[in-house]
């Protein structure tokens, strides 16, 4: 069964450093998403991406965050200057069309900011 692959599975970074979380969506999917889950809290929407541009973003997704699909297969989330409160599980997801029922999530990257 096709999978969404996320790397690394765990990343530890110092506060203020830049991190890039990587995702390989399912190959025929057109819509891409990042979500995060802070420990003990809800899974929260960060951003959706379609046709090489952001289609929707949450208030969490401020100027410190950016997304990119650099080469047609990878989909990355960059945090420019990490803060302690960015520590969370970050999930990438992709879907063939909108409507959410085609969503497939990756296994997540656990980001720990120290």
């Amino acid at each position, binding site marked *: 069964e096709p999978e969404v692959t996320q790397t690394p599975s765990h990343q530890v970074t110092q506060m203020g450093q830049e991190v890039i979380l990587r995702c390989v969506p399912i190959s025929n999917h057109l*819509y891409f998403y990042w979500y995060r889950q802070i420990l003990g809290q809800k*899974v929260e929407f960060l951003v959706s991406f379609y046709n090489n541009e952001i289609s929707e973003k949450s208030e969490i997704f401020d100027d410190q965050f950016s997304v990119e699909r650099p080469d047609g297969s990878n989909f990355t989330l960059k945090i420019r200057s990490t803060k302690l409160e960015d520590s969370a599980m970050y999930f990438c997801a992709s*879907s063939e069309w909108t409507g959410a*029922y085609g969503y497939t999530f*990756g296994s997540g990257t656990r980001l720990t900011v120290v």
Partner: protein
Amino acid sequence: DQQVKQNSPSLSVQEGRISILNCDYTNSMFDYFLWYKKYPAEGPTFLISISSIKDKNEDGRFTVFLNKSAKHLSLHIVPSQPGDSAVYFCAASVRGTSYGKLTFGQGTILTVHP
């Protein structure tokens, strides 16, 4: 943001019995609802969904019921199996205006005892 709420943090059920997980929402614009299951160290996995034009959808052991007037949905698992033990998330979306953004509840930990 409490648009989707799962008021029971945990549920414990005996194998073979029915598990009923509940979810309430406040945003009347939601028109599509989903249930996801999540094991530790994995991403959420899609289980079953329901459109707001229906009040019931069945898939094997899983049935989702939607009561629009009460803004309430529930997931029934019959019969429950130990392998069903996981965190269950209710999620909702507005398909017409959103590029697939999902709003999640807090999750309910289901434990099925042999």
